[in-house]
């Protein structure tokens, strides 16, 4: 192996790590991962920045020691200054809620990129074992937690605060899936010449599809129906 280190840029740290491992042809135990830029998802696709990592092959003696750089450890956002009351309050409230839901999890909070109106956006990253119950079917539970937490934090600050909850990197993964789905269905619309109808999605999810398909000039995407059954349709341009 001639290369002992490389830098990877991808939408998320997890993806960058996966790509790097593939390129080097090694398993995660054999490398050190250094996060150069954790990137931001932005909110609804605005202000997002890709993640950047440096991957270095461990030497033989380092390999004998237990692996320390686990990708998911590196993925947690930088903890903000501990003296930020708003972040502390948000984290504390999230922890209280989870404890009362009888769930064990690690909560990390940080400020996300400000949206266009310059309002604060708090990212709440929840990680732990077996948290699929906290995501729920179509992220129902995660969204309920996000809604309640947002209300409590907004009441505390007496202003509307955007709170985004992510569990085990679900939102980033889901965004990737939706982009791929959009591309695949667009291709099908073009091949068959027929309108494709996707399953019902939330406004945030539909937005991801629409944004992705702006780059596909051969199709038009449109949302039809009423929430919660509003769906994206993809039609070939005639």
């Amino acid at each position: 192996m001639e290369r002992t280190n490389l830098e990877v840029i991808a939408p998320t740290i997890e993806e960058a790590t996966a790509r790097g491992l593939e390129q080097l042809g090694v398993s995660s135990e054999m490398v050190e991962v250094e996060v150069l830029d954790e990137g931001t998802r932005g909110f609804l696709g605005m202000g997002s920045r890709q993640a950047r990592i440096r991957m270095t092959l461990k030497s033989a003696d380092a390999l004998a020691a237990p692996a320390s750089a686990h990708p998911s450890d590196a993925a947690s956002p930088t903890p903000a200054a501990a003296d930020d009351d708003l972040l502390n309050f948000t984290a504390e409230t999230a922890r209280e809620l989870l404890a009362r839901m009888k769930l064990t999890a690690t909560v990390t909070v940080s400020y996300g990129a400000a949206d266009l109106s310059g309002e604060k956006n708090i990212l709440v990253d929840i990680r732990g074992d077996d948290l699929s119950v906290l995501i729920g079917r179509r992220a129902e539970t995660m969204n309920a937690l996000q809604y309640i937490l947002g209300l409590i934090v907004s009441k505390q600050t007496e202003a509307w605060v955007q709170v985004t909850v992510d569990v085990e990197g679900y939102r980033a993964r889901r965004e990737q899936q939706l982009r791929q789905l959009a591309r695949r269905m667009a291709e099908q619309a073009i091949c068959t010449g027929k309108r494709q109808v996707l399953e019902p999605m939330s406004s945030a999810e539909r937005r991801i599809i629409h944004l992705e398909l702006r780059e596909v000039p051969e199709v038009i995407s449109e949302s039809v129906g009423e929430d919660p059954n509003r769906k994206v349709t993809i039609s070939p341009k005639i």
Partner: protein
Amino acid sequence: MKSLTEFIAQSLVASPDQVQVDQSHQGNRVRLHLSVAKEDMGRVIGKGGRVANAIRVLLRVAAEREGQQVTLDVMEP
């Protein structure tokens, strides 16, 4: 489940001291009755019941872990 409901309700209302949650059991079904001050009703119910429904979703997670079912009623004061 009772403590989860109390915590959320007390965090959302203007008069936390008037939040009361009563719990009753019927087999594996837990019924929660939430009462709050009259002017706080809207805060725990929400537009179209959105807040109450979000609380129910979170309660379900806690209930499922104990193999139970849960219902939440918001009572008129």
